[in-house]
């Protein structure tokens, strides 16, 4: 057992660090959740892509570096330690791309992945519906066969940054038989569609701080060609779930985010805190310990995968842990900032360009998205501890 990096991994770290030092904007970009910020972050994706840093773990043919999981973790540690911008392409890179690698056709990968990697096409998710949140399989939006493709109808919601994104991917009911059979996850099809297509109406929804982070999508006879179906029609649930573990497991929130945030929190605490306030000190220590635990847990998972293992329900442990860590860490920072803690990230005098405030607001969504923490705890209890299934 060891925690050692190879010379090649160290060299990769050095290269990433040097590139980031030369390219990360000295003043943070405007919030990702605004039109102006979205455009600035798209431009940043282009900068990353130009030097092949936007999708390091992808094959070189699609703009990546074929980096190993460990190299990807190293890159992420450096990325967040450098204070680099949030990733506006994350939904595409973390969710759609793994699905295309596993279930897409060669034609789809060649057509979709390079513009995703460059930020030219930014993807939004279209999973949730007004009546289908945690119980996603109950969704009602439909895909009906038409000449050369499908017609989509229905309503999707809580689609992050769909107000500004270019295209969306999600599940649609292509066969009603599953519902009547009491097997609602049957008869779903995984499709992709442009957000500016005829029949699509996008209505932005302000998140807690008013920024138009979400949108709801109204779909009325939106045409999707067969080429934009992923996997077999009717097999959408299996296609979507096979990569759901990616989101909760390794790729959505890399440990580098939290180790970097914990370091910034520690620095803030050293500069500003009353050394006699041991209650606050304990919370800072817990953030540091939590970030380190998450990093080590991830190294163990990466080792397991490198040794030929897989991650299944274990990814639910991750999701609960990082989402709660993120909130605790940011709450501690806001408490530490005293009267400045309540300033909006838009305030001119907000500490650290508003990053603590913005990070706090964002952290509040963590226990909800990517499968609520209640669903994750059910998965942990049933699949890891072997407890009997029961009513949700």
């Amino acid at each position: 057992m060891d925690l050692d990096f190879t010379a090649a991994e160290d060299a990769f770290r050095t290269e990433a660090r040097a590139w980031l030092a030369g390219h990360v904007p000295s003043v943070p970009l405007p919030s990702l959740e605004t039109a102006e910020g979205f455009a600035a972050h798209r431009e940043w994706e282009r900068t990353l892509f130009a030097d092949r840093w936007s999708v390091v773990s992808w094959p070189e043919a699609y703009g990546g570096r074929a980096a190993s999981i460990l190299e990807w973790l190293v890159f992420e540690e450096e990325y967040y330690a450098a204070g680099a911008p949030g990733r506006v392409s994350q939904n595409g890179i973390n969710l759609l791309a793994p699905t295309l690698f596993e279930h897409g056709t060669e034609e789809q990968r060649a057509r979709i992945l390079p513009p995703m990697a460059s930020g030219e096409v930014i993807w939004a998710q279209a999973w949730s519906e007004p009546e289908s949140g945690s119980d996603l399989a109950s969704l009602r939006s439909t895909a009906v066969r038409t000449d050369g493709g499908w017609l989509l109808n229905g309503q999707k919601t809580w689609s992050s940054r769909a107000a500004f994104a270019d295209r969306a991917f999600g599940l649609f009911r292509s066969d009603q038989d599953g519902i009547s059979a009491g097997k609602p996850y049957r008869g779903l099809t995984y499709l992709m569609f442009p957000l500016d297509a005829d029949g699509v109406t996008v209505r932005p929804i302000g998140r807690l701080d008013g920024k138009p982070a979400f949108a709801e999508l109204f779909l009325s006879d939106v045409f999707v060609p067969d080429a934009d179906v992923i996997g077999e029609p009717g097999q959408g649930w299996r296609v979507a779930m096979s990569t759901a573990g990616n989101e909760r497991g390794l790729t959505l929130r890399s440990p580098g985010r939290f180790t970097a945030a914990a370091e910034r929190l520690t620095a803030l605490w050293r500069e500003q805190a009353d050394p006699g306030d041991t209650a606050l000190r304990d919370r800072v220590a817990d953030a540091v310990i939590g970030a380190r635990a998450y990093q080590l847990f991830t190294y163990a998972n990466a080792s397991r995968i490198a040794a030929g293992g897989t991650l299944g329900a274990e990814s639910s442990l991750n999701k609960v842990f990082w989402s709660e860590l993120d909130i605790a860490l940011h709450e501690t920072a806001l408490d530490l900032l005293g009267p400045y803690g309540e300033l909006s990230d838009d305030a001119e005098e907000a500490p650290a360009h508003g990053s603590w405030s913005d990070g706090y607001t964002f952290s509040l969504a963590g226990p909800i998205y990517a499968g609520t923490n209640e669903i994750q705890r059910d998965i942990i209890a049933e699949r890891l501890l072997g407890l009997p299934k029961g009513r949700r």
Partner: protein
Amino acid sequence: MRFLLDDEQRDFARSLDAMLTAADTPAVVRAWAAGDTAPGRAVWARLAEAGVFALAVPERHDGLGPLPLELAVALRELGRHVVPGPVVETVAAAALLDRLGTLGDEATAANWLPGIASGKTVASLCLISGNASGSGCGSGSGSGESPYALDADSADAVFVVDGDTVRLTEVTGPVQPSADPARRLSRPLGGTVLARGPRVSAAAAHAAEVAALATAAQALGLGRALLARTVEYARQRTQFGAAIGSFQAVKHRLADALIALEFAEPLVHAAALALAANVESSGAEIAAAKVSACEAACSAARTALHLHGALGYTEELDLSLWIRKARALRGAWGTPAACRARVLAP
């Protein structure tokens, strides 16, 4: 990087688990608590035969170590089976003597270490004051210092560090009952001086780190056992016509207990690696492991007690042996506050 236990380490853990399962440790613990240490000494001898104590002793003194990671793996299994006795104190005493030896006191080390390795010598260790700076969980009160030595009434050798002096104590005060009846606490009184000077302080600091790591590993095992027993109970206990383990309120508490243990375990492994590599960060890593593992064990104990209902509140249920030990280990060899302070120490 391969941050996973290897096959040999897993096999070692499995063989200890099997041996301790067969040893019916709850009965051994109850006997120990009543002052009958013979069954406990028999288990101790078998653990020594399996090489557990030799892991804390260097080869030049008939040991196999020091091997902190293997020691942590072993202590986790001992915790899983609530093995009684000064297990942590014995391996920490070995660390103290080993370090005294490398700093020039080889005669003292040679006098005691072979006996510890072979299982012949059950040792206790007590840091009365001072000199734990740089230790697992900081210095000052809460850093592993205590007026009490564990199981000093039955140990073969009781080492006491007081300032820059280490003494061998023959006389102890009356046993002060611990909330964990298997932990027999008493004050060491007087004794003969074995060594004195700065080397004692350095060796004591090292011993406190080893003790904190060993306690963390033991807590992990306690927590795992508490969770496993409670999951089993929740699958079998029926109310409202269904297994209580099918209810979300029950499931989620058990899921949280698993999460805490799963994230504490890699901290313990990393702390052991840091100690083995003798790196500067080992004190902070051990402190992080200690506070996380002990909190995970305590929270598993609370969950276990609660989900067993009134049954969990009884002494006669063996679960009580795990529940009470989890609480005691939380304060031993580094309080939560001292560990957290150590994590942030510059």
